[in-house]
């Protein structure tokens, strides 16, 4: 491949761009003419390209070096549902029946224990599993991000890691995002995950895994955390490692499908506080030190939990758009951004410390797909899959950029139901945050006449450290996908409009629209019940020292817990970012929190952050106050930055929950 000096070429390209700008062609017009991609890179035409042949060196992995691609040529795809299995007869279970105690017998075929788990499932006797699932993490060497021949010629087949539907047969190939798990409250589940990855990684990825179910109220045995000193973390014997597991092992994850509070006096009888119902979760790899590359390689998927109110059926309960029969009108949208080498290979900079922003945008693993939609309401579960990019999501009519197209958020930015749906122009998502949104395409069509609407990220972000917080003009952001509104008449729709839901709840005198799943009362300093009373206020300052992340001036340590929380008590946490150059989505495992204030500004009902959350988006020089209850389980969990590159390097601490806690205010 010929090699040119990148600086000179980009200068030529810049000059070309300047000339185009002088000719009064807007970005938008260039886009229409096919001269610029939605990512802002000039399309490869003679003398015009910032990429060209050799604008980047062969094998180079940085923004601007991915090959140009044509957007909106692939139909969107949705992951399959993970099928239920019968452990009595299914070969994924019969060789080692699913038990609360891990199977640590040595597998003669591998010489290491069958199961990677070392801890007993907590509360399994109380919540006997009723549903069993299996899935296998496998490499897929033939993954495509676009099946359009023009794009395939530039970005061909690639290796990804994903999850399959649980069959041992090679024909059950792994996909990313992995199969969607759709359990229901009251029906405890076991998910058996097999590690069938390989060391043939093509340059990044570590085939040892720990699958975290993000936002579920899990014991440490099933949380899928990064490290834990009580599972042999300090041991030199790798066979004692209990948190991540090796090729040739499986790991049984148990989810009680009970709500938080189930082991407190107030909520024992009801198996938890119904107001702690979780809705939109996701699972992803959490291999300590290597989470970013493994998730980026594809180890990610959705888990949506249904209940007697949010039923998945638009004719019952809250009457939200139907999930069943899947795929119907309640669908996942997993947003990720990627980098490719000029020769079209998915790449990741394992030597970078700042964070990684891609120049190619994927939704559910496809490059800027399109989706044909009916004239009715849809519920989308939008996830910022990282590794480092934040989004501000708008709906844009490409033919009339001045139109403002609102939509409705029904959850906080961590996928838990708000008290009342709120109409928004945009939603900001940091890495790992989720938003459930309702888009009414019939209403949009009637209001705008548009047949084409695009999901656009208008938040400027030029590096992995943080977004700039600048909102770009409509059409100048990155189009993530295109909705094509079909039909000359409205489509059947038994779901209720958000306005109707609110009106019905008011008429019935309900406490909130999604009653009984209303935001629980906040813990207070003087509450009568122990689990409602704030026992200690702790402050965590997120810092950087000589290029190393620190929390309260201390560094990551997998060999000890930094502090101990007393089980079934409440705490107030103040988290601080002393930097004007970095932002951190701070994620805390085990329990959700309520955000009380951001920079001394109270979060009020009607704000999208008013409710239950598990990620606190810590902006430039911000201070955020959080209130938690830590209930039910005993053991160790992490708090970490969910910019996964920051997390790996290693903006992370471990805490534990025990029957007696400490009062360390700056742990």
């Amino acid at each position, binding site marked *: 491949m010929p090699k040119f000096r990148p600086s000179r070429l980009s200068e030529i390209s810049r000059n070309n761009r300047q000339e185009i700008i002088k000719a009064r062609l807007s970005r938008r017009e260039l886009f229409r003419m096919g001269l610029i991609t939605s990512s802002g890179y000039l399309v490869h035409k003679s003398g015009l390209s910032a990429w060209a042949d050799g604008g980047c060196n062969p*094998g*180079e992995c940085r923004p601007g070096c991915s090959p140009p691609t044509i957007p909106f040529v692939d139909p969107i795809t949705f992951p399959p549902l993970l099928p239920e299995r019968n452990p009595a007869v299914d070969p*994924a279970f019969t*060789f*080692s029946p699913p038990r609360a105690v891990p*199977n640590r017998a040595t597998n*003669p075929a*591998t*010489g*290491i224990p*069958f199961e990677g788990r070392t801890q007993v499932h907590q509360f399994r006797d109380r919540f006997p599993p009723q549903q069993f699932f299996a899935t296998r993490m*496998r*490499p897929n060497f*033939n993954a495509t991000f676009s099946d359009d021949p023009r794009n*395939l010629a530039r*970005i*061909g*087949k*690639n290796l990804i890691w994903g999850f399959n539907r649980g069959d*041992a047969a*090679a024909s059950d190939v792994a996909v990313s995002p992995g199969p969607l798990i759709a359990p229901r409250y009251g029906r405890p589940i076991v998910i058996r995950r*097999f590690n*069938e*990855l*390989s*060391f*043939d*990684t*093509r340059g*990044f990825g570590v085939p040892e895994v720990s699958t975290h179910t993000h936002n579920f109220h899990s014991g440490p045995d099933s949380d899928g955390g990064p490290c834990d000193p009580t599972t042999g973390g*300090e041991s*030199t014997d*790798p*066979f004692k490692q209990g948190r991540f597991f*090796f*090729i*040739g092992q*499986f790991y049984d994850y148990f989810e009680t499908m009970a709500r938080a509070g189930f082991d407190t006096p107030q909520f024992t009888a009801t198996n938890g506080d119904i107001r702690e119902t979780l809705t939109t979760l996701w699972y992803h790899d959490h291999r*300590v*030190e*290597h989470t970013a590359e493994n998730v980026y390689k594809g180890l990610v998927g959705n888990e949506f939990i249904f209940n007697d109110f949010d039923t998945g059926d638009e004719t019952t309960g809250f009457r939200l758009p139907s999930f069943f029969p899947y795929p119907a009108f309640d669908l996942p949208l997993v947003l990720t951004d990627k980098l490719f080498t000029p*020769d*079209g*290979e998915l790449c990741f900079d*394992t*030597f*970078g*410390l700042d964070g990684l922003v891609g120049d190619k945008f994927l939704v559910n693993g496809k490059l800027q797909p399109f989706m044909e939609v009916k004239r009715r309401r849809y519920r989308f579960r939008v996830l910022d899959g990282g590794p480092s990019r934040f989004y501000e999501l708008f709906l844009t009519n490409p033919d009339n950029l001045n139109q403002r197209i609102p939509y409705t958020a029904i959850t906080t930015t961590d996928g838990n139901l708000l008290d009342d749906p709120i109409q928004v122009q945009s939603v900001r998502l940091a890495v790992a945050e989720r938003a459930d949104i309702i888009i009414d395409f019939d209403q949009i069509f009637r209001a705008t006449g548009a047949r084409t609407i695009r999901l656009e990220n208008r938040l400027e972000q030029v*590096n992995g450290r943080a977004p700039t917080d600048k909102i770009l003009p409509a059409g100048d952001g990155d189009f993530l996908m295109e909705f094509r509104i079909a039909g000359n008449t409205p489509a059947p729709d038994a779901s209720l409009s958000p306005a109707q839901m609110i009106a019905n709840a008011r008429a019935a005198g309900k406490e909130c629209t999604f009653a009984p799943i209303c935001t629980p009362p906040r813990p207070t300093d003087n509450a009568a019940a122990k689990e409602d009373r704030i026992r200690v206020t702790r402050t965590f300052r997120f810092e950087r*020292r*000589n*290029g190393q992340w*620190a929390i309260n001036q201390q*560094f990551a*340590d997998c*060999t000890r817990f930094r502090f101990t929380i007393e089980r079934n008590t409440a705490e107030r946490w103040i988290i601080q970012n002393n930097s004007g*150059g970095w932002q951190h989505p701070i994620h805390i495992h085990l329990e959700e929190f309520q955000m009380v204030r951001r920079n001394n500004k109270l979060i009020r009902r009607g704000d999208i952050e008013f409710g239950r959350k598990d990620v606190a988006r810590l902006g430039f020089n911000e201070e955020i106050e959080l209130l938690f209850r830590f209930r039910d389980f005993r053991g160790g969990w992490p708090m970490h930055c969910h910019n996964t590159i920051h997390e*790996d*390097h*290693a903006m992370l601490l471990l805490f534990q929950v025990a029957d007696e806690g400490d009062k360390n205010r700056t742990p």
Partner: protein
Amino acid sequence: MSAMTRRAGLAAFGVATIAAGVAAWTRKTSSHSNGVDAPRSRMDPRERLQRYHLPNVELVTHEGKKVRFYDDLVKDRKVVINFMYTNCADGTCPITTANLVQVQKLLGNRVGRDIFFYSITLSPDQDTPAVLARYARAYDVGPGWTFLTGAPDHIERLRKALGFAYADPVEDANKTNHVGMVRYGTEPLMIWGAGQGMANPRHLLTIFLWEFDRPLRGKGLRAPVA
């Protein structure tokens, strides 16, 4: 379960992927093994990592020996790499060096046998081999840990390639603010991590062993592959 036959144990898993794991360890490079149907022939990933992150620059050891960074120090090895300078007064280097001395002691005689430590000076003009040798003696550094100096442009290239530079040039120019991370990895597996040099040495030991002691290479999947 101990009566489980090898065949039955393997049957629960995808056998091919297990074999591939072992194969990757022993192969010099991992290209052309997986049927990736690229539109053009893609660069071998190990070669790509070498080219962009592990430059084969010439360096001089604290014993005065000339070495090539990739060929002589990193290739086919498990390594731990950091940057320091002997008159570093900001606390980062002394603490990191002392930490790594602790880690080295905990690793026993493995350092120099199957794990190699490298500390590269950020002050190549001052830190001659003799100065580095004195520094190593002062910290009671054991065998298998090499301090390195060299031409300033070689050191600079290495620093940037290994990810020890800041994107902001002003921040990057301040040597007292130098990146205190410790890079570690297994070159033939193309796995690279980074720990905090000032972290608890037992934590560093732990994350290093998770990298260097994976069971696949040990008594686990021991099938030899030519």
